[in-house]
């Protein structure tokens, strides 16, 4: 590369095409735009839900009406017109029921194949079961029967509501009540699908489970709900991925994830979020990713670990958290959040220590390029009851270029004197000296930047399941390509 070319690429933000920006042409069935009690009833009826679900939804809806939209994040955006959103949009069923592979619309199969998520239970994917969610509904879940042989339930939320109403009744809203926040209330009122996982006692889930979320319709709101229950001495690794087409308008994604771990249970939950980030130059379009994720370590010695790689979305607002109720329980949060161009992210975690000897670890890596904003917001709370609680927090920010910003907003609230908390934070700029050093070894500018950034994220990548670690690394390089200036 000549020096002139070099200057050209590093000073110009070349809009790297978002590779997942295509739309699927398929006949959809939609509820009219807007939100009302009728829409809530429509969704519930559409899903043939039992009465208790409709009541849950209506209570949530009525509560939501009284709430105001939270605007305390660092992100700035125009007001959202909640009546200009489709709350239900599903591929028209060809016949009978979706769910079995043979019944999945070939167009949808092709869509997921294009996204690298084959819905066929092929040999080479033997390690991972997938629940594929397209707009408002789950279109297919692989390996369902095989998992069930070991008592593991992995199905769409809608199916779980009819088949396992008792478990749903017991746990729905137990970690994230509909009163929790504005978007959690909205989700509770109108959520249309999601994934449900139940791991029975003494069972190590025989394969990794995953959900893949795809938004297809313009002006849709995707409201999915995931519930994972791990009984005593069981464990599961769960992976989540997301993409959406490119539209000039913003789509709302307001999900709720609830995890429950009983005695000695372990849940590892990993997310690679690659929603459409909006136009690189104008910032038009992109997903508003307003998500509430929380896990409850209810049992003794239980463990919940969140790992997230956030590279997409116009705005990210999420704080995967752990409530450490059981004695000796462990909560972990490992995060890499990348913002480039005009993206805005306000993300972090809450660790709430209630049980004795509870431990939590927070490692957050924020990378900001272009004119993006990247905030880490975290809270560590140690209740009176939490004797010998320990927390280790490390937040590192990396800036690429001089027009972006990084903000760290940690809060600590300790009510028990035996607690031990450590906090480390750093902000670094990708140095010209580092780039020059790597380039002087024959490594290209983009590879040099990718190497520095992935080195910066190494402690988090180490926590990802193998199949995700490679993807995360590639995604990061793509997202930051040509961002040195």
């Amino acid at each position: 590369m000549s020096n002139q070319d070099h200057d050209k690429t590093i000073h110009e933000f070349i809009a790297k095409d978002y590779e997942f920006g295509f739309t699927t042409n398929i006949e959809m069935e939609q509820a009219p735009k807007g939100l009302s009690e009728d829409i809530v009833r429509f969704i519930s009826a559409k899903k043939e839900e039992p009465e208790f679900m409709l009541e849950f939804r209506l209570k949530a809806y009525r509560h939501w009406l009284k709430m105001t939209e939270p605007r305390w994040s660092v992100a700035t955006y125009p007001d959202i017109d909640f009546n200009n959103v489709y709350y239900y949009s599903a591929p028209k069923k060809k016949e009978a029921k979706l769910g079995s592979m043979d019944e999945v619309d070939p167009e949808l199969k092709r869509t997921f194949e294009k996204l690298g998520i084959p819905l066929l239970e092929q040999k080479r994917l033997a390690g991972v079961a997938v629940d594929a969610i397209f707009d408002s509904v789950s279109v297919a879940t692989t390996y369902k029967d095989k998992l069930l042989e070991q008592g593991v339930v992995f199905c769409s939320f809608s199916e779980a509501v009819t088949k396992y109403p008792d478990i749903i009744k017991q746990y729905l809203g137990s970690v994230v009540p509909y009163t929790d926040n504005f978007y959690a209330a909205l989700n509770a009122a109108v959520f249309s699908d999601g994934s449900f996982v139940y791991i029975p006692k003494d069972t190590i889930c025989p394969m990794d489970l995953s959900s893949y979320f795809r938004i297809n319709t313009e002006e849709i709101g995707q409201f999915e709900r995931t519930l994972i229950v791990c009984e005593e001495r069981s464990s599961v690794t769960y992976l989540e991925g997301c993409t959406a087409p490119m539209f000039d308008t913003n789509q709302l994604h307001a999900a709720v994830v609830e995890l429950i771990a009983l005695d000695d249970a372990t849940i590892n939950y990993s997310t690679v979020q690659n929603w459409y980030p909006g136009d690189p130059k104008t910032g038009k379009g992109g997903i508003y990713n307003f998500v509430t994720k929380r896990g409850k370590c209810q049992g003794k010695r239980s463990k919940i670990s969140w790992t997230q790689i956030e590279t997409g979305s116009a705005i990210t607002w999420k704080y995967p958290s752990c409530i450490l109720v059981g004695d000796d329980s462990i909560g972990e949060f490992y995060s890499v959040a990348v913002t480039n161009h005009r993206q805005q992210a306000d993300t972090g975690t809450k660790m709430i220590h209630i049980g004795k000897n509870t431990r939590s670890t927070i490692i957050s890596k924020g990378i900001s390029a272009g004119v993006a904003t990247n905030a880490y917001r975290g809270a560590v709370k140690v209740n009176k009851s939490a004797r010998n609680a320990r927390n280790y927090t490390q937040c590192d920010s990396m800036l690429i270029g001089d027009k972006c910003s990084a903000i760290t907003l940690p809060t600590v609230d300790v009510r028990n004197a035996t607690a031990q908390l450590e906090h480390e934070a750093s902000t670094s700029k990708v140095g010209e000296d580092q780039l020059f050093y790597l380039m002087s070894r024959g490594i290209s500018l983009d590879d040099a930047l990718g190497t520095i950034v992935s080195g910066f994220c190494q402690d988090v990548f180490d926590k990802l399941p193998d199949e995700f670690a490679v993807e995360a690394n590639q995604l990061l390089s793509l997202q930051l390509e040509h961002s040195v200036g």
Partner: protein
Amino acid sequence: MLEIKNLHASIAEDDTSILKGLDLVIQPGEVHAIMGPNGSGKSTLSKILAGDQQYQVTDGEILFNGESILDDDATERSLKGLFLAFQYPVEIPGVNNAQFLRMAYNAKLKYNGEEEVDPIEFDDFLNEKLALVDMNESFKDRALNFGFSGGEKKRNEILQLAVLEPKLAILDETDSGLDVDALRDVSAAVNKLRSEGRSFLLITHYQRLLDYIVPDVVHAMVGGEIVKSGDKELAKELDKQGYDWVANV
């Protein structure tokens, strides 16, 4: 191998002039040493040769193997066979040393139209090179220069030199911060890497290094220019009489 003609260069940010008409010719297989006081521009010269964008060439020419490299970025210059051992090697946290070395090595192979090597093949190759520079295998698993002592960093530079097998290696004050034993080891490694097709440019304050790596030509650099050139005896003379002696010639 290298031909520098009337090179003028300044700091890009504020136009401070550093090199003021420097000429230098290095033939294949030759070892040249540039000595000079602080601020003479000798480290700057090494960075400019490697393509550091903090400096701009305002006049003159740099020919490498007969071709101008002024339009090439640092990557391209390295791929063409130019190597700079840094005076202050940069720490890059989280980047595995062995993986970095393989990445650089593969970039070179690819550039030369050769097949890239997998980690297992590379490991054998790397072990040989480690032995050559008398480095422990534990260096492979450490993060690139991160937390290395000054001496370890310098050894790691020579390791990279051994791995990349450049046509021209510039050693920017490789001797600074080394104790006598480390200096002897590093020099021995460099001497092993000397060959007919490979040239070296040593940049140093002290004659000491040149007792171990004996140069063919020694240059005295003062005020951004080469003011005197000679054989290895010149280095001894400079050590004895100081730079005022040549500056006033």
